[in-house]
């Protein structure tokens, strides 16, 4: 059903209203300006014959004489293997100068949830080669995890590295409000790293329309979902989810919605959850794992965006001072793989190493405050230094098993076996050197 209407009644922010009959909520329309320029728009409110449309490319330059063609369906994306190696914008149009998609069944964006009882309990490790992740907060297939970061931290480098190194069949990248340079950085890294052939990118730069920022996660996740149903293990990388939330705020305000915290709409939690909850392990098919960057304005974790995100996701990685922090970072699903999908000494070793690093920090503080230092403190300080160099440095790339071995060697370099607080059987099996009773 194609219906064309001429003339726009009101324009307010990125919302344009027309009078039309028989239009469905959420339906897509094409607005054509008299100068020939076209933009997609989505129905966001119906009141009698008045239809409010959210114009994807913004309303600047939109004429009251424009014509509106309703497509009779919500926004869709064609998903097939054809997507791989391609770059699209926030409206799903090619950004790479190649032709549009013509294969694959069109699927609606933001489709229904997976039935909770049809989900499979996660239990497979996604190895990344980054010891702070693999050893201390393992990423599990179908997990959703944010990287809590700040302006100036190397979250782009970290995310790109995870993309390159993680074992996944397909990478779906969603860039939301990125500076152009950063978007190019990701594309180049994926091309040079040789993974572009199994990557699809949806990119909205800071110069692109705000409304399209809202669509990027939905496009990325719709693609991921179809590929997962087809049996692929998909890793979705989203950056920056704070820009997504800011776009939500901007549009909610222009729709005259009542703001709750710091101007964000009351639905912020549900809006974020609807996206993150797409992470899933499907029985008899593939999976979706989501890693998102959330920059914390002012480094404040209680800001509504990181705060709501923390309640939704299954843990978080804190990126501070250029490292993934061993404290505060958490993988809630880690316990499903540690020692089960990895090695039996993984759990005790990981706990002991973190506990000792906390002691090292205390010893460091003690030193700084001028309290007395003991022989044990000296060991702690040495360990702290080695821990930072061998594990926390983001440049380090080590397969998990080698990282575990290095962990044992590091402990043995600094401590006697009875000082590390690990069960005797484990020590006897793994400690490099003699374990005296």
């Amino acid at each position, binding site marked *: 059903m194609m219906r064309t209407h001429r003339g726009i009644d009101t324009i307010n922010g990125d919302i344009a209203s027309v009078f039309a009959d028989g239009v469905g909520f959420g339906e897509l329309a094409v607005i054509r300006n008299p100068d020939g320029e076209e933009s997609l728009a989505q129905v966001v409110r119906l009141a009698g014959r008045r239809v409010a449309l959210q114009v994807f490319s913004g309303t600047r330059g939109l004429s009251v004489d424009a014509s509106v063609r309703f497509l009779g369906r919500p926004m869709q994306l064609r998903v097939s293997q054809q997507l791989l190696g391609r770059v699209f914008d926030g409206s799903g149009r090619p950004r790479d100068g190649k032709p549009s998609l013509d294969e694959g069944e069109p699927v609606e964006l933001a489709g229904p949830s997976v039935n*909770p009882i049809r989900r499979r309990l996660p239990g497979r490790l996604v190895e990344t080669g980054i010891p702070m992740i693999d050893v201390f907060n393992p990423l599990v297939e*179908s997990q959703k995890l944010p990287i809590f970061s700040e302006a100036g931290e190397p979250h782009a480098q970290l995310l790109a590295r995870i993309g390159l190194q993680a074992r996944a069949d397909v990478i779906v990248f969603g860039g939301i409000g990125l500076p152009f340079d950063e978007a190019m950085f990701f594309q180049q890294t994926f091309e040079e790293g040789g993974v572009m052939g199994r990557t699809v990118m949806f990119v909205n730069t800071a110069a692109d329309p705000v409304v399209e920022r809202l669509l990027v996660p939905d496009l990325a996740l719709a693609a991921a979902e179809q590929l997962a149903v087809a049996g692929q293990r998909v890793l979705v990388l989203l950056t920056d989810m704070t820009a997504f939330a800011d776009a939500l705020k901007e549009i909610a305000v222009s729709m005259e919605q009542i703001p709750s915290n710091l101007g964000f709409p009351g639905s912020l939690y549900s809006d974020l959850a609807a996206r993150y909850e797409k992470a899933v392990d499907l029985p008899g098919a593939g999976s979706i794992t989501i890693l998102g960057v959330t920059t914390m304005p002012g480094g404040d974790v209680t800001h509504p965006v990181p705060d709501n995100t923390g309640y939704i996701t299954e843990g978080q990685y804190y990126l501070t001072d250029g490292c993934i922090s061993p404290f505060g970072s958490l993988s809630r699903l880690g316990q499903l793989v540690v020692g089960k999908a990895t090695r039996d000494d993984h759990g005790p070793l990981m706990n002991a190493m973190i506990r000792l690093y906390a002691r090292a920090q205390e010893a460091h503080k003690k030193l700084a405050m001028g309290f007395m230092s003991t022989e044990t403190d000296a060991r702690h300080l040495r360990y702290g230094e080695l821990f930072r160099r061998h594990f926390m440095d983001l440049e380090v790339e080590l397969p998990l098993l080698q990282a575990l071995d290095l962990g044992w060697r590091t402990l043995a370099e600094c401590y006697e076996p009875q000082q590390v607080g690990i069960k005797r059987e484990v020590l006897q099996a793994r400690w490099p050197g003699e374990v005296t009773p």
Partner: protein
Amino acid sequence: MSDQRASGTIVGVNGNLVAVRRHGPVRQGEVAEVECGSERLMAEVIRVDGEVAQLQVFEDTRRVAVGMKVAFRGELLSVTLAPGMLGTIYDGLQRPLHRLDDRQGLFLRRGAQAPAVDLQRQWAFHPTAAPGARVQAGEFLGWVQEHHIRHHVMVPLDLRGSATLIHVADAGDRRVDEVVAILRTDDGHERAVTMQQRWPVKRAIDRHERRLHPRQRLVTGCRIIDTLFPIVRGGTACVPGPFGAGKTVLQQLLARYAAVDLVIVVACGERAGEVVETIEELPRLVDPRTGGSLMERTIIVCNTSSMPVAAREASIYTGITLAEYYRQLGLDVLVLADSTSRWAQAMRETSGRLEEIPGEEAFPAYLQTRIAGLYERAGLVELRDGSTGAVTLIGTVSPAGGNFEEPVTQATLSVVGAFHGLSRARSDERRYPAIDPLESWSLYPRRIDDDDPAWDAAVEFCRTTLRRAAEVDRMMTVVGEEGVPLGDLVVYLCGELLDAAYLQQNAFDELDACTPMDRQKRDLVRIHRALTMEPSLPDKVAARRFFASLTDAFYQRNYCAPGSPELVEQDLRIDQLLAQVGPTATRAGAA
């Protein structure tokens, strides 16, 4: 119920809110169906403004258009109450999730409809009432056996006044929709009674004789709760905490170990993955009280965070209504609502769309009333036959930024009987359960159903020591360990021992995860005796060494089964440690 059913036509759509021009009378809260193509979307009237009614739709409103028809059902949002609900996983509107699959068998189907219980299943009905009896709503007519529960068939709960029983079915197999009795009401009508009935979720089931003052302990197996901040059968409690503080694990422990007949878990706006964990785990665990699986005593009402928001608001009411029904059967029911903040946020979203004047943090002005109204539905009641039933409600709260000053936490604190506040500092130090022993409180009497002076003294000692230890700890951060006297350091170490060896519990250890009440009493009294013997310690180094060993011994003891040789060994070790430092400690008494 109204005989006349109205219809209507859609005149506006705003998110999940539709405006409907009504033809005929409608009721506030009435359920309606939006006819969107071949799909039927459930909705509820939330405002009437002359000819136009505002409805909130419980599903995604995509493709809903102006001019579509709406059929009102003449009934408020209701649930079905019948045998066959135990072990089921429902959505927020009481649709069984295993019947809501789409064609692929993976996704939830919009507009799906399914009966709440299996209508084909046969139940062995045993009549207990005889024709001629005068009966009132809620009186028992007969029963069927469902797992460990004797499920009574009741005179319909919505019956007004009295009625005369004129027929009761013989013993035999019946489906839930078969007539098992016939009543003649006082106004002369005959009414057929089946094993299933409907009840509107936003109205409390109150067909009992009277409400009682709750004063019987509900044993959760969680030491810090049972010892310091107890809850009672028919009481209420809230568990607020920032993300990552362990709310979910605590809820899962309560669902597993609380000593009740039935548990209703309301997963309201939280992660679907957590529901998966519960579903995978409960069927494998054995209920020590019945020998059946824990799933057989559990009902899950599940509206996870990506499921429609309007049904999230309904889900908590669905859960508490099911609980009230089982209370009416004389059972002891625990409702775990995780999380009431998501429920409050769902109200906020709807309120915002209705353009109501916002209160604090944009929550509606009636937030406090709704929260109070919900917690008031818990309670201990005496039924008409003199037996009792209870609904205990424990709600988690997810305060924004972990700040307890926010409206949902504050509104909740003013109505609950116990507050188990989770602290980020404790969870960061991996001190689980991260219930803050200094901030939390319980209004329920500590001596609930027992009289044991040794236990009272031990609990009092535990409280005082924890408070004083925290003071010493604060002092030491300023002046260092060298700045406090030995006596203070000992108090601090006593506090640490109580924390590490008693308050903290390992949720993933089969034995330590749940401590029965009698063991809690023995263990705490033993710790109390050990710590009040005034050890003679020459200096701080000796004090630290002594307490490190003692703490470890008491800690290891938690992993020893009662009566096991390991327990005897640890007790011996404790006695030896005490004997080394004090003359009076030798007969500390083995547990």
